[in-house]
């Protein structure tokens, strides 16, 4: 290499670092250092007023004891799992179904896509508040709907059917399902748009060939659509698992973890321990358990859904 060329390469590298400086500095300050600090704090007792005191693995041991004694952290793990299991399969199946319907060659696709996407752009806080009003035990629209439904059943079944009004968010058994229903409603459009993009990437000639071969729609779905959508499904699944593990805003607004810890989640516990009880070390240990959990679940999901990437030629 000539001296001039190395000079140019050096200059190019210098420019590159100049362009990278603001972004990398922010990452360094607000991601790298905080992660290391959080790791350190997770081995400490720290209440923000006094200096952190090194206590080794005590925080993690406490979390372990909490889980084996079915304490609050155990409940938050259980509730978060319940939320994930409640939202992900149903939400994804609905999204795929809708995407298939929208993609079936109808007019007005854009209008449907827009409408289904509306809740996604609305803030979780606003949406949670609207749903609290829908879930209101006395004046809520949902209980009114239940009453209309039971009246309709009465007519059909020819004897009186009574579905009593529910207390929804105030009921320990119903609060989490109520939050799950709202969250499915809110996330549907996002998953649907991703599935739509995936569906539109499947070449038409595959279906044409299958139709000529006499394959039914049902067979076409399982032989073409489903396998070719596998990468899309994997992507949505990973994103959903990560999102569900971090559920917080709707819980904080709608129930604040209640009634009786029936809806407290991992992030809700991190938030409460760090900022209400000022147990910042304990909260950091929880955060690392969450981190490990997300990491493991993502790996498992990716492993389970690996393969099936298709290049169209």
């Amino acid at each position: 290499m000539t001296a001039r060329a190395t000079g140019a390469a050096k200059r190019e590298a210098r420019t590159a670092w100049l362009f990278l400086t603001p972004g990398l500095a922010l990452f360094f300050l607000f991601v790298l250092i905080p992660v290391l600090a959080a790791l350190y704090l997770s081995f400490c007792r720290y209440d923000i007023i006094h200096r952190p005191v090194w206590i080794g693995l005590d925080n993690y041991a406490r979390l372990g004891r909490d889980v084996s004694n079915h304490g609050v952290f155990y409940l938050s793990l259980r509730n978060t799992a319940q939320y994930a299991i409640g939202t992900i399969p149903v939400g994804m199946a609905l999204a795929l179904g809708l995407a298939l319907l929208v993609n079936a060659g109808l007019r007005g696709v854009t209008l449907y896509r827009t409408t289904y996407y509306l809740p996604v752009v609305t803030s979780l806080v606003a949406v949670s508040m609207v749903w609290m009003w829908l879930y209101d035990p006395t004046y809520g629209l949902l209980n009114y709907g239940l009453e209309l439904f039971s009246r309709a059943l009465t007519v059909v079944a020819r004897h009186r059917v009574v579905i009593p009004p529910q207390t929804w968010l105030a009921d320990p058994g119903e609060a989490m399902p109520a939050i799950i229903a709202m969250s499915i409603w809110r996330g549907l459009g996002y998953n649907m748009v991703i599935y739509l993009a995936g569906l539109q990437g499947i070449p038409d000639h595959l279906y044409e060939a299958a139709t000529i071969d006499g394959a039914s729609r049902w067979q076409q779905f399982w032989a073409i659509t489903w396998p070719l959508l596998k990468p899309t499904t994997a992507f949505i699944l990973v994103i959903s698992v990560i999102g569900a593990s971090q559920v917080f805003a709707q819980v904080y607004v709608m129930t604040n973890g209640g009634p009786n810890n029936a809806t407290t989640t991992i992030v809700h516990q991190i938030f409460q321990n760090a900022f209400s009880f000022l147990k910042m070390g304990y909260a950091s240990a929880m955060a690392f358990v969450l981190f490990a959990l997300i990491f493991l679940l993502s790996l498992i999901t990716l492993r389970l859904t690996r393969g099936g990437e298709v290049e169209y030629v």
Partner: protein
Amino acid sequence: MKLRLSQKAALHLLLAAGALTMVLPFLWMLSTSLKPESEIFTYPPVWLPSTWHLDNYRKAMASAAFGRYFVNTIIYASVVTFTNLLFCSMAAYAFARLRFRGRETLFLMVLGTMMIPAQVTMVPVFIMLKRCPLAGGNDLLGMGGHGLLNSYPGLILPAAVGAFGIFLLRQFFMSLPRELEDAARIDGCSEAGIYWRIILPLSKPALATLGIFTFTAAWNEFLWPLLITSKDSMRTLQLGLQVFQSQYTTSWDLLMAGTVVVTIPVLVLFLAGQRYFTRGIAMSGMKG
């Protein structure tokens, strides 16, 4: 696939029922926000108020420092959008177009930060901002005051750049043809000039996508403003909504008026910039 008319009608019916489920809560929110209090607590519920009670909006705006929350939210969301566009595009340009040692490793590290949940970093970031030296009444060692809590820099800085934005723009920059840049380089244009005069103008669609995403996310952000602001004058709209809830009662008419006000700007933004939204989702959803 050809569909028969009856099949089409059935599909439309299903999709319309779903669409109705999507908008019903919004219509109910709007309806409640326009009702006099007496019509809110009626059973069975009524959809259309007897008189349109726009007064709820005036009352809602007056019952808290809503104007202030609005200004705070606009400042927060706009500045975060601006810094993300600038810093992400700069970094993305270096990753996409400039050669330097360790480029691929560094890029993977930046992507890797997307794996770290915000809950891991939030406690230390909170402490760092509180202990920021010489800010908010702090001494040189960061003691004595409240640091950058309850301040715009405290709200903005931790969100000023994002790995997703760098990734998105890098992918877009790499798809741009190199001919224009090479011509500019031969004409003696500097790298900064190429970035500013060629790459950025060509990348308007990608920048619009990232801008709209960032603005919406910041507008809707809840957890971080909740942590960092305790003073009423620094709150954002999402936090402001809570003034209508007390432990025992909720003023649903005012709360729904408030949610309408909070929701409308992002809905308008979404409807205006829809194609950028769907493109962005397709871009993030397709190949990683």
